[in-house]
C-alpha cells in the first residue's frame, strides 16, 4: 500500500539525541506510527515489522498504532531510519522532502536493522570505544 511518509520530532527521539549509539535511540527512531484502520488493512499488529520503500531504498520499521495519524499517512520520528529511504531532491530550496515522500509499505518478517547496519550499508565503518582502548 502507498502512504504519505511524514517525519518529525518526538520526545523519545529527542531524549536519545545525545546517546545515539544506544538501543533506546534506535528504538525511538525506528517506529512507524500508523492509523489502526490502516493497520487492519495491512493485517499487522502493534510491534509487527514493515518494509518501507522510498525513493532511495528500503528500510524495516516496527509499527505503532496512532489514532491521531490520519489514514494514508505514517509518521516516523526523524533520524537515520527515516532518512535511509529519503531522496536528495530539494526543489531548489535546500530542504529535502522530509514530510512529503510517498512510500510503499508491506508487512515483513525481517528484523529491524541497527543504526550501525544502516551506516555499514552506506559505506561507513562502525566505531566502538573498545576498539581503540
Amino acid at each position, binding site marked *: 500500500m502507498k502512504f504519505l511518509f511524514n517525519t518529525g520530532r518526538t*520526545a523519545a527521539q529527542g531524549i536519545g*539525541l*545525545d546517546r*545515539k549509539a544506544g538501543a533506546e535511540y534506535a528504538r525511538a527512531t525506528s517506529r512507524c506510527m500508523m492509523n489502526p484502520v490502516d493497520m487492519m488493512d495491512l493485517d499487522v499488529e502493534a510491534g509487527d515489522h514493515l518494509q518501507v520503500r522510498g525513493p532511495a531504498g528500503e528500510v524495516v520499521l516496527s509499527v505503532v498504532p496512532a*489514532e491521531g*495519524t490520519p489514514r494514508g499517512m505514517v509518521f516516523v520520528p526523524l533520524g537515520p531510519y527515516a*532518512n535511509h529511504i529519503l531522496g536528495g531532491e530539494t526543489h531548489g530550496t535546500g*530542504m529535502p522532502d522530509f514530510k*512529503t515522500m510517498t512510500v510503499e509499505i508491506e508487512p515483513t518478517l525481517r528484523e529491524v536493522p541497527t543504526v550501525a547496519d544502516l551506516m555499514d550499508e552506506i559505506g561507513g565503518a562502525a*566505531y566502538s570505544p573498545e576498539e581503540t582502548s
Partner: protein
Amino acid sequence: MIHTDMVCPFCGCLCDDIVVETEGNAVVRVDNACTLGTHKLMNASMDRLKGPIMRDGAGWRDATYDEAIEYAAGVLLDADRPLLYGWSSTQGEAQGLGVSMAELLGGVIDSTTSVCHGPSILAIQEVGHPGCTLGQVKNRADLIIYWGCNPTEAHPRHMSRYTTYADGFFLQNSFRERKLIVVDVRKTETASIADEFVQITPGGDYAVFSALRAIVRGRGDVVPPTVAGVTKEQLEKIAEMCKSAKFGAFFFGVGLTMAPGRYKNIRNAIELVDELNRYTKFTLTPLRGHYNVYGSNEVFTWMTGYPYAVDFSRQIAFYNPGETTAVDILARKECDACLIVASDPGAHFPRKCLEHLTSIPTVLIDPARTVTTPLCRCQIPTAVTGIDASGTAYRMDGVPIHVKTFLDLGYPTDTEVIGRIFEKVQEVRHP
C-alpha cells in the same frame, strides 16, 4: 555542588532557570529542565570520546589533538570545494571562526538551518519578520497559535514558560484568558489541549492561509465550503478569534517549512499576521530547534550578509539556497572535503548525501559518538557549550544569552579546536 540559574543547551527556548547538582564530575540532579534537557544534562559526562580518533583502514585508532588538527587543516587546504557544515549546537564564537575559515578557504559554510527553518528565512527576506521577544508573548499574548509544530514533544517547556501555562503581567488569569489554536495534519499531544484544533489535509497550509486572509479582509464570500479539509465555519471562527484577541502570537514549526510550498507557506503566514495587525497586535516566531541555530544565522549575517549556505568560491560571499545548501552540494557530489561541527547529518540527511560523505575526507568535531562517526575519517571531541564550556547562544526570539558552564572535564572548546585549525590554514593561505 549546586549550580543555579544555568542555561539549558538543548532547544531554542534556552531556559535559563535550570538548577544542576554535581558530585565531582557527575551530575546527580537537574531541576526545572524538561525531559529533553534533563537527559542531556544528566548524561553530561557520559559517552564522550576520550580523545580524537582516526580511520585506520576498515577500523579506527586513537590520535592526538595535534595530529587530528593537522589532518583537518590539511584536508581543508587540499580541497577545491570544502563544505563546512553544522554550527547549530556550538557557541557563537566558534561560528565566527568558522565563517572566517570558510572565507579563507574559498569554501561553503552552511548550518542546520537549511534543513529546518531555512524556508522561514527565505520568506522573511521577502516580506519581513513581525516578531517580538518571548517575554512580550508571556506577558501580553491572550491568543496563541501553534501551526505545524508539536511543542509538547519538541519544546516541552515552551508552553509553561512563555504561552499557555505561563503567568502574564498584563493578564488577570493567564491560563483562563489565553486561547490556544493548534493547526496540524495529525492530532498531536499539543492538539489535544487546544481550544480549537484545525486538522488540515497534508499540503493544504497555503490554501488555508489564503482563505483566512480573505476572511480577515472581509472577502469570506470567495471562500469555498471547505478548504484543505477545513470547514468554512471553522475558518471564520478562527479568524474571529484572531481579530478579537488583544495580542496574538503565532508560532510555527517544520510542519510548515517542510510541507509543499516550503517558504511560500511562511510568506503567506507572515502576510496573514500583517493583515491581522490592521485589527490587533499580532506577532510571528519560528520555533527553532537547536539551541544556537538562531545564533548561526546571526553570526553568518553579520559577517557575510547572508544567514546560511554562504559560498565563498567566487572570492565574495554568494548565497543561493537550493544550490549552495549542504544537502544539494552533497547530493550533487560537489564538495571534496567536509568539516562537520556540532551537528549530525548521519542521522538527519538523505542517504544520497551520506554516501558522498563516506567517499570524501570528512572530519567531525563532536563530543560524543554519533551516527555521523562511522561516516567520517577523523573525529575530534570537544567540550559541550552549556556543560563544560561557556559561550554565546541566541534564543529562538533572537535574544543572545550567555551560556554558562558547571563542569570541567578537560576537553578543549569548539572555539579552541577550530581556532587551531584556522591558524594552520592561515599559515598556508596568509603566511
